[in-house]
């Protein structure tokens, strides 16, 4: 809800003109009435209407400036005849009226050109720019006519007024990293894969990774869904990255790195968040040292995500791209509290991106880490991946504790239970299959639908195909051991009992249904927590209730000046793309902080936050101008019998034909939003 003077946003017509302020009807939408801490907005104008927050707005100038933004922001457009000329004509005609030289016929021309743009433009930006302009012309006709008939300037024509605009799209808005999705898809469609990759890397350096293992929240906000099925957005991202790698090109960076400016930043952790922060800081001319505790770079995507899902040679390309920007990596280095103290003087700022690397307990009876066969998911995946990707052998202490017959994770003939339901647990069970286990069972509290929602359809079905058993509505009650060797699990069964009051259904244990099943291993993969022992105690960093580092979620500075945090150690275990988005924002804030000591957001970032609140995607919108019923492409995967015995990449990616067909389905839903502040 926001307080408005006038609004046509999404078809609501709120007209408080002439009413006393206390009687103003409110808008149903989260419009950016307050621009930032110290500025109110006067107006908001965008693809689906216009809202005025004050009486004093020069609506002709507002319309003209919006048309001007279309010209200004044409790096995204100017690529079709109606948009290219139409946009200019809109602006010229509005300016003519605003400066007091307009004619009545100009209004007709504006409407005519507006209509042509609405029905024939290449992308939504061209189709929607006329919308609020025509709204203003209709609802403020008197104001326009006054300027035309009296040949006078619009009321604030010559004043300096701040107009702040941002290009967005439903998918980019839903992407935590604000990736220019229509941009990279256009690169695929035009077979300009370098452009595609650069579009991605503007805000997301991990194109190989997020072209493969991103849970793609964007696809839930794809406007194509309103027509038929969402675009396969994620899979199209790897086309650019694969192109660069396959042809052995130097890295396509979307920006020239700025000359070194003498500032230094330390980054703790070389996972997705650390890599991202390092990339954009280095691009900005900052010297960056990244400290990584493990002997290898890449964080959980390296030691957590298995080879068959994220081949190391591909991820290495992403990492090398970051290094190529001029980032310095220090591996095998566990940062201590003393070092953190010292970093405060030796660096201009520090970004903590240490992730969440402690597997949480399943909370059952007799759950004791010393039981052999009880094996935390993070540690389990570490040893699997270090061996598969780097040939690093599992140390004898772990071999002994986990009863391994050899120097790597070999589960031949063993039975494995995993408790989880998220991506990590899927990685565990599928790795266990590949390690030769004879029976692998996922124990999950909720149902199939939920596990698919929490992971992906493909991930779940591929696991089933590979032979993983799923026991739904169940939980481990007790571990049964003999002399500290795991022997069996007591598993409780639950049923979902609907709340008679219409609330959330409750899981209720079915008494007497529990069973005891023999297992050699229990691998808890319920969640992870952050290991933050390296933080100096006297800093007393503020923590969240989940024991992660607290920031305001906008600038990513912790309660201590100059110490920033992003990724899982800030948010709790979440997605790669979330870590990337946070780290990029944090890096942007840091790049100003190290010069000014101030914490600020750019207009682009402020607008990004406003639009996320407003939500760009509208699942109820009726899409016109596109033929429905063109099916989404699916990439083929390796044959089950073949893939379950090795670590070859399961998803083969799109063929070129599939990629082009899929890219052609993209409707280029760019929009411009603008605030008068």
């Amino acid at each position, binding site marked *: 809800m926001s307080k408005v003077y006038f609004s046509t946003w999404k078809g609501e017509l709120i007209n408080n003109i002439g009413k006393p302020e206390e009687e103003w009807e409110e808008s149903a939408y989260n419009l950016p009435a307050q621009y930032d801490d110290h500025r109110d907005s006067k107006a908001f104008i965008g693809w689906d209407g216009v809202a005025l927050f004050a009486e004093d707005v020069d609506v002709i100038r507002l319309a003209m400036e919006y048309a001007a933004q279309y*010209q200004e922001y*044409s790096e995204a457009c100017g690529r079709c005849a109606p948009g290219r*000329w139409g946009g200019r004509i809109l602006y010229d005609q509005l300016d003519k009226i605003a400066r007091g030289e307009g004619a009545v016929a100009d209004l007709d*021309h504006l409407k005519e050109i507006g209509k042509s743009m609405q*029905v024939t433009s290449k992308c939504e930006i061209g189709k929607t720019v006329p919308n609020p302009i025509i709204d203003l012309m209709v609802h403020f006709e008197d104001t326009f006519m006054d300027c035309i008939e009296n040949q006078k300037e619009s009321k604030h024509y010559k004043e300096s007024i701040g107009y702040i605009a941002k290009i967005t799209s439903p998918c980019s808005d839903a992407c935590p990293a604000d990736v220019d999705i229509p941009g990279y898809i256009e690169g695929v*469609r035009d077979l300009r894969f370098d452009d595609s990759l650069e579009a991605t890397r503007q805000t997301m350096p991990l194109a190989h990774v997020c072209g493969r293992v991103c849970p793609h929240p964007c696809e839930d906000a794809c406007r194509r869904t309103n027509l038929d099925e969402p675009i396969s957005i994620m899979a199209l991202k790897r086309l650019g990255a694969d192109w660069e790698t396959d042809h052995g*090109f130097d890295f396509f960076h979307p920006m020239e790195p700025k000359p070194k400016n003498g500032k230094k930043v330390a980054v703790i952790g070389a996972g997705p968040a650390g890599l991202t922060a390092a990339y954009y800081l280095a691009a900005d001319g900052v010297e960056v040292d990244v400290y990584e505790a493990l002997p290898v770079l890449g964080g959980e995507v390296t030691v957590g995500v298995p080879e068959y899902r994220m081949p190391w040679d591909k991820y290495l390309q992403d990492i090398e791209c970051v290094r190529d920007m001029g980032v310095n990596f220090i591996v095998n280095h566990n940062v201590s509290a003393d070092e953190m103290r010292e970093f405060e003087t030796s660096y201009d700022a520090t970004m903590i991106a240490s992730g969440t690397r402690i597997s949480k307990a399943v909370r059952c009876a007799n759950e004791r880490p010393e039981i052999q066969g009880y094996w935390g998911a993070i540690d389990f995946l570490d040893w699997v991946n270090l061996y598969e990707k780097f040939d690093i052998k599992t140390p004898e202490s772990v071999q002994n504790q986990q009863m391994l017959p050899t120097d790597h994770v070999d589960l031949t003939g063993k039975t494995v239970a995993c408790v989880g339901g998220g991506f990590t647990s899927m990685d565990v069970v599928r790795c266990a299959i590949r390690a030769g286990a004879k029976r692998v069972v996922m124990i999950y509290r909720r149902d199939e639908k939920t596990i698919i929602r929490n992971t992906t359809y493909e991930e779940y079905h591929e696991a089933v195909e590979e032979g993983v058993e799923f026991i739904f509505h169940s939980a481990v009650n007790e571990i049964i051991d003999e002399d500290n060797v795991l022997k069996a699990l007591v598993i409780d069964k639950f049923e979902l009992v609907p709340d008679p009051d219409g609330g959330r259904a409750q899981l209720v244990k079915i008494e007497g249904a529990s069973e005891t099943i023999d297992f050699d291993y229990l691998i808890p993969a319920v969640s992870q927590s952050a290991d933050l022992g390296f933080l100096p105690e006297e800093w007393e960093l503020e923590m969240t209730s989940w024991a992660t580092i607290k920031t305001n979620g906008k600038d990513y500075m912790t309660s201590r000046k100059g110490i920033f945090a992003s990724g899982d150690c800030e948010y709790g275990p979440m997605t790669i793309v979330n870590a990337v988005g946070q780290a990029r924002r944090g890096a942007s804030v840091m790049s100003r902080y190290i010069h000014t000591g101030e914490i600020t957001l750019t207009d682009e970032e402020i607008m990004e936050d406003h639009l996320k609140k407003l939500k760009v995607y509208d699942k109820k919108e009726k899409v016109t101008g596109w033929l429905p*019923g063109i099916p989404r492409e699916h990439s083929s995967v390796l044959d089950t019998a073949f893939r379950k015995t090795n670590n070859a990449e399961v998803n083969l990616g799109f063929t070129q034909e599939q990629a*082009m067909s899929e890219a052609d389905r993209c409707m280029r839903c760019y929009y411009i939003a603008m605030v008068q502040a």
Partner: protein
Amino acid sequence: MSKIVNFKIDGKDVKAQKGETILQVARANDIYIPTMCYISKTTPCASCRMCVVEAEGVDGFVLSCNTPPTEGIEITTNNVELEQERVNIMKLYDVNHPLECGVCDKSGECDLQNKTLEFNVGQQNFSAKDQARKIENWGMINYDPALCIMCEKCTHVCNEVIGDDAIDVKFGGYGSTIIPKNAETLDCTFCGECIAVCPVGALISSDFKYTANAWELSRVPSTCAHCSAGCSLEYETKHIGDRSSQAESIYRVKNNFEFTSLCGAGRFGFDFANVAKSDASAFNSAVDALQNAKAIRFSSIITNEEAHILQLLKEKLGVKLFNEDARLYGEFMSAYASVSGKLHHSGSLDAIKQADAIIILGSRVATDNPGVRYAMTTASRHNGAKIVYAHPIEDALMQNIVTQFMKYEAGAEEGVMALLANTLLANADLSEAEKKYFDDLDLGYLEAESNVGADELATITRTFARTQKRVFVIGSDVFAHANAANIAKLAAMIEKYTDFSLVVIPENVNTAGVSLVCDLDADDSSEAIGYNAAGTFVIGSLEGADLAVPALNQQEGTVVSIDNRVLPLNVALSFEGYTLNDIANALGVVKENTVDYTKELNTASGFKSVAFDDLENFLDKYGNDVRGYLLDEVSCEATATLDEVSDLPEFNGVVIYHSNPVLQFNNYTNSVEQLEKDTTLRGSAQFSAAARVSDGEEIEITFGKQTVKRVFKLDEELKGTVALNPTFDISVDASEYKFLKSKIVRAI
């Protein structure tokens, strides 16, 4: 498993193959949908929006160029509303378009003019502030942004078909413009395809600029005379009013850009006609010389009919015929035939375009045969083809096409072929003897000496696993290899036992034709009459010949292209002197016209008995190539066995490689005005150090029996120890392997 979609366009039942768009189906069914930016050979530019159509039950207009139809949908291509929007789009295109049709090169063949008239745009109610825009001079190409309608055809062909990827759209709404990509000025191979596809006068040839109006030019359809790709083109000629020395001249070359492409040599290198006058005494001397000759040495830059006459002269006069280029090609193909059981290779440029897996060996193809390069670019972009480029020297031009550069040591082609055959035939149904042959290969030795590792071969197996349309391309490097025959046999094995089709790139425009027409003798360097080649008496179409004969753009005749297609050449400019046929007539080999021999070409080689005048020379409106005819396949005995792979030769010390700069092929391209003639020896920093020559230094290179003077140019894009020595300005012995140990000394 192609899925057919049935739907209706304007009430007519039509069918679409998988991947076809509404516009493509409309065109295939002769239903007109206007476009300004569509070009058949690229992905849709989708910028003009003229091709919007209505779909039954769908709100708004649907873009037909990039939308595949859905089952049962009913499409309307025209009605009042669509017409209105198309008119408005034309009005927008016309906003501030300079009213200078009177002096614009494009006038008369301009899409903007045509469509403005078609949509009857007589007045304009839209206006915008005009902007001052500067004409860019990019060497052979000029760009006028004021005329540009930003259709993006040029950027699409440059990237998707040519592969230069040298121009880009600079986005800027109304100020959008075309710019050189990542460069101050245009840095490309100057194919001029951007000029060809430009629908307006924005991209033009700086040579042609202001010289003629489109409607004044006569068009002569022919085949390009510079390489074996057999590109179709039209010479555009005009009678000259103010240049009294010549009655007519070629003003420019155009191509059917909608479906085919042309390189810069074909487009800009058109002025190689022989302007010498008729000389009766020279003619008599030529007849005398031939009567007393023991041999005729000739080049492959002649027609099949000329070759046929030479063959008849051989039979009549008992002379030997020397043409090492065609002889070696012919021997290569004979060896191929001895295993494959047929005369002609199976692949074609079209097969390359449609491929998703290509291996090319023994060719610096971007310069050897631009047509092959463009076909590979198309395959790379449109099919995501995996392309293995096996050659001793990396080519920066090919980086955005090639997915695997396989560097082998100069001279190692036979070994590399054996390794490739062993890899590709791993699962083939070979005979016991053939199996044993491959089992007995000393892979370790071959890998070590050729420098092609087992991992590289494994990479091919891995990356080709998903591919379905595969082509093996062999270049002209191998023809003069000591073990060319075994290379040919190994290639034939691959073609025979796998789903690879095979393309062999003939060196010159009619190398293939000559090899099929003539019975050639090994050149023993003895005295011979030269026919378009060096000799004691030279009959030729280049300046300085003892008797002038017409060049390939001055005569009718046919050539055989890389596709094994017999293609007609036509008379763009008349020639006033004598022809080989006149000489033959004087020597008792009698026919009225040279092209009377067209239907008599050797059917045992696959030629058809078709008269020249019955040969078509155009592409139909759907882009089907109906030029000339394809050679008939000829079966032969396949009795040969593979030879043992010889020890691989070593090329130590200073090595040069005979390779021309882009757009240069031979003395003809060397004689034309517009093409750059860079005769420098180009080498890497490593070469510079090894040969002790520095950038800009004048040197003398001695190879074989020849010594040439060159200036050395350090080329940052080159690597390794082999330098590139052009041959277009000198004649080199075609029987010499293209990699040569040589001596380089500073010129004094």
